[in-house]
């Protein structure tokens, strides 16, 4: 290759970067919404739930987080991981992240949620374990302890495939600390 001088061209770069970003952003559209869950009893004595947009909440309130994802790329995408972080001011309510049933081709598959307690670094299915170092009789001992659902930091669903225009919704609940 012949040596070529290089000229910094800010405008050209800006256009390129924006176009790349635009391409990258339009492939999967994500919409996150939160609802405050309240329970009440109707006149027949049935216990019912009411969901309303969670603009204002109080400690102890239950929030439902819904993440809707649409494949807008026009192509089939693979290994789509949908991640809902657990806000640190809240904690995850065990059992509220439901398995996702989706159609892949002609068959229906079930995607189980996976959980992380280390900021999204590692995921696994409950029960999760972590190692803690404790001092026993002057010796440091590593112990394996189960991670409480309240310690979860992220929840994800991994779809092996997502067809063009396919839309899915996943949800979970947390409680305000």
């Amino acid at each position, binding site marked *: *290759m*012949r*040596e*070529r*001088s*290089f000229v*910094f*061209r*800010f405008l*050209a*770069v*800006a256009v*390129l*970067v924006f176009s*790349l970003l635009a391409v*990258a*952003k339009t*492939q*999967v*559209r*994500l*919409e*996150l*919404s*939160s609802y405050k869950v309240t329970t009440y009893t109707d006149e027949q004595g049935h216990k019912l739930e009411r969901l309303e947009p*969670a*603009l*204002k*909440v*109080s*400690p*102890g309130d239950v*929030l439902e*987080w819904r*993440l809707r*994802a649409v494949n807008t*790329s026009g*192509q*089939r*995408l*693979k*290994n*789509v*991981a*949908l*991640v*809902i*972080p657990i*806000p*640190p*001011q*809240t904690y995850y309510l065990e059992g509220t992240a439901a398995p996702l049933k989706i159609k892949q081709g002609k068959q229906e598959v079930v995607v189980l949620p996976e959980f*992380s307690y280390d*900021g*999204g*670094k590692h995921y696994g299915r409950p029960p999760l374990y972590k190692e803690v170092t404790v001092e026993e009789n002057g010796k440091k001992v590593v112990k394996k302890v189960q991670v409480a659902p309240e310690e979860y930091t*992220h929840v994800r669903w991994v779809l092996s495939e*997502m067809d063009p225009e396919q839309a899915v919704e996943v949800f979970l609940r947390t409680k*305000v*600390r």
Partner: protein
Amino acid sequence: MKSSQAIKTLLFFLFALGLGAVLAVGTPAGTEIRNQASASYVDSAGQPQTTTSNEVVTVVQPVYNFEIKPDGANEASPGQTKSGLSGAPVYFNYTVTNTGNTTDTITLTAVDGASDNFNFDSTAIYLDANCNGQVDSGESVVSSVNLAADASACLVVEAVIPSGQGDGDYGNLNIEGTSQGDAAKTDTNNWARATVTSAAVISATKSASVSGEVAPGANLTYTIDGQNTGGSAAGAVTNVVNVDGTDKTGLLLSDPIPANTSYVLGSASGSAGAGTTTVIYQTASGWTVTEPASGSDVTAVGLLIEGSGAFFPQGAQFTLSFKVQVAAAAPAGSTIENVANVKFDANGNGDDGDPGESVDTNTTNNQVAPAYGVANGPNGDPDADGSGFVNSYTDPNGKTWSYSETTSDPNDAETITNDVYGGDTVYFKNTLQNTGNSSDSYDLSMSGVPNGWTCQFMAADGSTPLANPVGPVAAGSTLDYVVKCAIPADATTQSPTEITVTATSENDPSVSNSVKDVVPAVQSGYGVDEAQHDNAGDGNANNDNPPAQSVDPGATALIPFDVNNSGHNPDTYDLTTTLPSGFTGTIYPDANCDGVMDDPAPAPVTDTGLMGAGDTKCFILSVEVPAGQTPVDLDGTPGTGDDNVTITATSTANPSVSDTITTDLEVNLHADITFTPDRNGTVTSPGTIVYTHTLTNNGNADASVTFSESGSTHSNWTYQISTDGGQNWSSISSAAAVTVTPGASQEVQIRVIVPDGEPVGAIDTNQITANASYAVNGLGANDSASVTDTTTVVGGDLRLEKSARTCADAACATVTSNDGSQAEPGEYIEYTVTATNIGTADLKKVVVSDPLPSYTNFISVSGSTSVSGAQILYSTDGSNWSAAAPTNLVAGQAVYIALDADNNGTLDNNDALPPSETVTLTLVVQVQ
């Protein structure tokens, strides 16, 4: 406890210089819960991608709650009982704590009990601002307290026992509280009891030098003041304590050293208004008067007031003071509680086992103040001491980044050791540690990001965006995070780029720590190597240029070349060429990359199409050289140095990146002349005949033509040449060279001069050769062509001249060859035979004939004459004549015409051709 920390601290001191005891349950009101989801996926091109959702913001609302301690569920089970003289006040100590998540005002009322012996004469609630358990000067009666979330206030409730009550009578009192923020929140189970006694009553209160929060490492001075406020002298307890192995008798004031503190050596002192006082220390081996070597060995400090019998009179006082130091590692928010105890004998039986004889002071509460600290450093090594550093991180796209570490805070840095190119997205993994004693959150910020770079904070997974503040991080815990920077595609840097990432404590913005994330010099992300076929991408600039090619005018040259994406990003390259004027270049893809034009030829292209990093594509530049193009070899040395063809591949993503190859396309010198036609003629002796020839230059440069002759056997015949239409004649060999431009023709006349005395029938054949010499741009070439002129001496004076021309049509409206030297099948040839009387007397019975040539079909024949009044007769056999021209002639036949001068229809001696008159036969045939 975030942004409102300062306000709350202020409120705390304004309204509640008291005990901070219990952490609020719940996230503080006004906190914003922010959340943003993310997704990662592999797109159709197999590239890993990430995307994020909108951010959802929810605001935490206030929750009101509080508690009043100590509890007493009802009148039958009061939470505290005090003894007092009839007609005198007793004092109850309470603590009110705001356990909600926002500031609140708690309304307080004192309620007399119903299931007791008396109602109090009066009750008053004092705010015990310094929490020493006593009503001090300046401390006022309150009906409510205003408390920030988590804050506490100390209360002293004064209740005056009515006079005239007997020993053992008691009155109950309840302190009831109501939240003003939420009136449904009340605390009404705080019953206390005052019992009337005339015996000795020791009242002791305790205070701490610091009220409320105390910093780790600070000293606290505890002071216990006591007095006999009863109706009799207090008595000694037999063997109240064993000191250094000896049982002692008297009053004992003892105060245990609270957890998270240690006794400060030499700080204890005490005195009493009666008896003999000794400060004593409790250690693991019991009480001693000798202060141990280490303050941490002291578990309690005591004041022994020795005496016997009822030796401590009414009104007598005592005091004990000592210091403790708060442990540096004491967790923030933990409470240092302390309560002292006094043992005495009220009823003269020598022990302290009767009700009221073992008295606790009020409890002092100090909350350990938070101390904030943060270490922000390289991956796994927040304090940058080199221990724990992890030198690599694999980003969500699967690329592993390697780091080197610069240790020693505050100059610590993490430097990428991978090569970095424009268009790359680089990842740093950093680790911060909470080095304070309390949970804290941090604002992450960065500086030094070059213009155009896009940097953001991500969670440790590299794909979840992080919103400030990050955390909370428990004291001593670490948090990994990722700094992700997208470098513009066309960026390059000559030196490393330092991005300073700072973590700042949310609770104490003066506490921060930084780490430098260093991106090495950014190399160009785009590159292209264009070269002759099979040589692109080899990094060798010396083999790029295609070899020179030489082509004839009108030919097409094919130049195979390859383009290699030598950058690190996908790119498309525009392909452009520069060619000599008039040349036409077209670029075709060479899909199978064999360097040979595919058949059928593919559609031409003007760019390479998108090419991945490292990809090579093959192309062929087809150059059409115009017919008649003059020779090209600018430097005169075939195959070198002209560089008249360039091919440039230019990056469309970054047009400053391009590569050009050059080559020589040389056009051959083409030497080609024609010299026609051969001529036949008859001449008398003496006589002269002139033949006309056409010299045409079909080469691509000027031809300089000279002439030569050969074959003449009659040395006395003279051949001359004229190239100017017969004006000037010269001998053939000495004729001046004539220059004929490409495509042009030159008329050349040859004159034959026959001397007198040549016999009839003598024939001379002479070949005239045109020798063309081409010389241009240092190139040279020659060509030659000849005509043969055959001359026959005739006896008469009739000279025959025959010429021909080729026409596109039978009427010869369009002439395609003036000398009839070339004709294509279907074209017409018009032959003209002219017979001229060159003598001085009439010629009789003149007949002119011409045979039908082979490979032709007869079209027409016509005759004409210059003789006035004469007609032409026609014949196909030379004996039978007709005035009508024949309409058919078969192969091998000839056509005859004769001059019928007297116009009588027969050929006879009257039919004379006078001197200089002519008879002309015109025969038109079509080439088969």
